[in-house]
């Protein structure tokens, strides 16, 4: 019964995002442009040092990592903060609150459809292309399964963080600043902009204790490690699970408290 509710929203989201097929093309084109930029950027960085290996990563390691991070970003980013902000400002949130569902899950399942479409239309093609082009640099084995599990955690953590950020919109009633700030912070601290291996020392340790690295760094390192030690793998997934549960609780509680703040405009 409850599952049916969720999947009907996912289904609607898929249909809805397929209506805008041009936007998928634009995303892919934008990605290509971005990739060209980071290719040249990192080429310059590696050219400036004498060794082939910097911080334990070769040029192609770095590039594969960053390309996949971008692809992962495309499908995990659900623009929930935008959405909550927009709905709060327009007062449309009132209608969502009148659905017989918890708002947190209503919103998640409403946008899950887009994520599914993005997964098939941007992540999967990118992954396949990278696999073929790099000719075996990505190990194909059990790590794919672990990767999928890791991504599920990552999606959940990412959504919780988005939802918490979105909830802040209830207080600020403005969305621009928050929206500009959130992806920059998340992408940087999660290792999607620069691999965490490149972070300077005290910073690197701090980042290890934050939830963000579980979003991009964790699934990517699981994916790129073809022969993981069980202990290391379990630690990575364990930490993800920990953050997943914690952020879930925090976002729910924060929303519950904040909902009382709602003052939908109009008298």
């Amino acid at each position, binding site marked *: 019964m409850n599952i049916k509710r969720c999947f*009907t929203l996912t289904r*609607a989201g898929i249909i809805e995002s397929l209506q805008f097929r041009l936007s998928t093309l634009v995303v892919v084109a934008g990605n290509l442009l971005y990739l060209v930029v980071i290719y040249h950027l990192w080429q310059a960085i590696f050219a400036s040092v004498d060794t082939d290996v910097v911080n334990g990563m070769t040029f192609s390691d770095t590039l594969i990592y960053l390309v996949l991070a971008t692809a992962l970003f495309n499908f995990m980013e659900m623009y929930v903060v935008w959405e909550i902000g927009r709905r709060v400002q327009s007062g449309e949130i009132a209608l969502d609150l009148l659905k017989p569902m918890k708002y947190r899950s209503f919103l998640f399942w409403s946008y899950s459809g887009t994520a599914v479409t993005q997964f098939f239309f941007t992540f999967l093609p990118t992954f396949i292309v990278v696999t073929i082009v790099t000719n075996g640099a990505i190990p194909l084995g059990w790590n794919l399964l672990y990767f999928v599990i890791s991504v599920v955690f990552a999606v959940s953590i990412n959504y919780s963080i988005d939802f918490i950020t979105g909830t802040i919109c209830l207080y600020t009633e403005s969305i621009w600043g928050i929206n500009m700030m959130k992806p920059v912070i998340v992408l940087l601290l999660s290792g999607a902009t620069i691999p965490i291996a490149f972070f300077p020392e005290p910073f690197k340790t701090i980042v290890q204790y934050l939830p963000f690295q579980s979003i991009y760094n964790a699934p990517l390192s699981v994916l790129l490690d073809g022969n993981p030690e069980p202990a290391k793998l379990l630690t990575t997934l364990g930490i993800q699970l920990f953050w997943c549960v914690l952020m879930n609780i925090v976002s729910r509680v924060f929303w519950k408290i904040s909902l009382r703040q709602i003052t939908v405009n109009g008298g």
Partner: protein
Amino acid sequence: MSNIIEIKNITKEFKVLNRREGLKGSLKDLFSRDYKIVRAVDNISMNITQGEIVGYLGPNGAGKSTTIKMMTGILEPTSGEILVDGCIPYKNRTRNAQNIGVVFGQRTQLWWALPLVESFKILKDIYGVTDKDYKDMLELYQSLVDIEPLLHKPVRQMSLGQRTLSDILAAFLHNPKIVFLDEPTIGLDVSMKAKIRTLIHALNKEKNTTVILTTHDMGDVDALCRRIVIIDKGKMLYDNDIEHLKGFFGYYRTLKIRVSGSLSETAEKIAAEFPEFSVSANDEWISVLVDEAKSTVMDVLSQLQKTYKIRDMQLEEISTEEVIKKIYEEGVK
């Protein structure tokens, strides 16, 4: 008949920051703790029984939407009690949502990019409507309005009228006990308004749904509501049948006559003759607003006939619109 909605002395206050003028004022506002309390709804009580259509009226900013938001559970009252179908809305928001349907005139709950039928299917699953009930409901809809061409049209391509119609159908889809319609006919043309009124009326009859309607269009009120509630500045001004409303200020009727000769001169003479009534004239008619408590229209007419040669006459009942206007402007004595 049992009460589906019980409201006892509810009050809602908002805390609003006192904004100052200009750039300097705006900068100061960033650190200001200077709030003022705005009382949007002030000590309102009412009971509504199952199957009623209640017109909920008041000028802009009177507190109508705030009351509705409290009944739907989006806002929590500052004080007082609300029971909707036996439960407290803001404490059981999701459960309450199952019992109610809502249309906010200027917004849509439909999925913008999808054909209407997809929105219906989503709502069907969200509200857990059985296949049979869903099919019956669509058949009922089809018998009331021609929805077939709308069903396969994406909502974003619809005209405002079609969209409002669809939104109303969507609100009734899970057969809720109460439907809140917040200005459903705003911005619609005459024939669409009529269509929507017929639809609301039919759905109310068919399913015995309680309808709470806020509107600024007195045509809606006359066509649909037996009972009206008027509030202004958060306070309840009137809660009774629509028939009583007309007698609220005495039974006024407007007598319009046309005579030979100058209308404005004659009007002045008539005004002198009947100082207790207000008399006015335009290019076509002389209007006499007769208070039936003082003398009947027939008396006035026969009196006039003695002195003037009346070529034509009309009798106008005071409209709901005028009464409401009077209440808004003057309040209740």
